């Protein structure tokens, strides 16, 4: 029996690793709707953190306001659930004050790109070593389904009742143009790839963005007849193309599809490192 016990616990490790990371005394289940992609991202994130072997004390998790942004409440890290859109600003303070910590920002498409757009592009520009996980469900979930900067043109939301007349951002393109040194996209359907993308992002020194295409079937799905969580997940599978595969496809074949995988990577110098050089050069001066 002893052998079995041991084997069992060893083998079980990967699937229940997330259980080791819940914040003590915080009760589950989460506030999220049944089937919400947020939980899928959370478990991929935890597996990535666990794989990289960070101690819980060296991780800080920061979020703004939104369904997505509730995530840090559940996890056993130092956490700041801040004001709407400002997570990256607070996170910049933490990272700069404690450069040895791994600072992870969890943010939604509204939080990160609407009200928080400026902090987003500036964190990219500074290339500060923060990993931002942007859960893009194409809508404001928390407030009940208003349009966001990623709501596709033509889509219905409670503030675009006749179809969205605005264009939507490509957050990855924006991040790269602003200066982020690692940019990847995943979906809640492609969980192994998502885990890998997050792992790479965390391991990268510099600002890293992982955009995760996710389902808010409660609002986006319902208003746009995209069905339930399952149908939306399946749609992500059908509409996504890996960067490798994309090279072989014609523009027509790519029509209506989106890329997943690592979209950009470079090795520009990191903000805190550069600042440290200034300190080293001037420390002790009068």
């Amino acid at each position: 029996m002893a052998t079995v016990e041991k084997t069992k616990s060893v083998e079980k490790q990967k699937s229940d690793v997330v259980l080791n990371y819940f914040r003590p005394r915080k009760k589950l289940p989460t506030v999220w709707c049944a089937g919400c992609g947020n939980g899928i991202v959370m478990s991929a994130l935890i597996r990535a953190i666990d794989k990289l072997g960070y101690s819980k004390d060296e991780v800080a998790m920061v979020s703004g306001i939104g369904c997505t942004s509730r995530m840090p409440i559940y996890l056993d890290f130092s956490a700041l659930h801040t004001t709407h859109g400002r997570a990256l600003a607070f996170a910049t303070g933490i990272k700069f004050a404690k450069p040895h910590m791994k600072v992870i920002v969890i943010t939604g498409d509204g939080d990160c790109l609407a009200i928080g757009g400026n902090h987003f592009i500036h964190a990219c520009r500074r290339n500060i070593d923060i990993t931002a996980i942007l859960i893009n469900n194409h809508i404001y979930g928390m407030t009940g389904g208003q349009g966001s900067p990623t709501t596709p043109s033509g889509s219905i939301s409670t503030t675009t009742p006749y179809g969205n007349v605005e264009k939507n951002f490509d957050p990855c393109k924006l991040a790269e143009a602003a200066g982020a040194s690692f940019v990847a996209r995943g979906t809640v359907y492609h969980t192994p790839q998502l885990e890998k993308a997050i792992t790479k992002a965390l391991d990268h020194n510099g600002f890293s963005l992982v955009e995760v295409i996710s389902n808010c079937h409660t609002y986006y799905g319902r208003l746009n007849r995209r069905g339930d969580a399952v149908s939306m997940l399946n749609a992500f599978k059908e509409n996504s193309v890996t960067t490798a595969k994309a090279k072989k496809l014609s523009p027509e074949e790519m029509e209506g599809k989106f890329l997943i995988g690592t979209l950009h990577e470079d090795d520009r110098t990191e903000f805190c490192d550069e600042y440290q050089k200034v300190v080293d050069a001037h420390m002790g001066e009068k």
Partner: protein
Amino acid sequence: MTESQAAKPATKKKGKSKYDYSNGPPPLEINLTWCKACNICIALCPTQVFEPDSDGKPAIARAEDCTQCTICWTHCPDFAITSNYK
């Protein structure tokens, strides 16, 4: 029971798992308190291991078909599924 007995891949059969759960615990553990009956695991399992119970939550109906592919538990948004084998 020895290590080799528990969850040993059986001979490969289409739609059948290479694991043999007959002597060990069930392939997966389901936390029904956390489960919100979203249906994702039931729908995505490639070998239709689950059937919905009366609350719409997953019940393991065909344990023997579970290939430990990880799909159900990496997709469960409520951390309600853990594997006993992988």
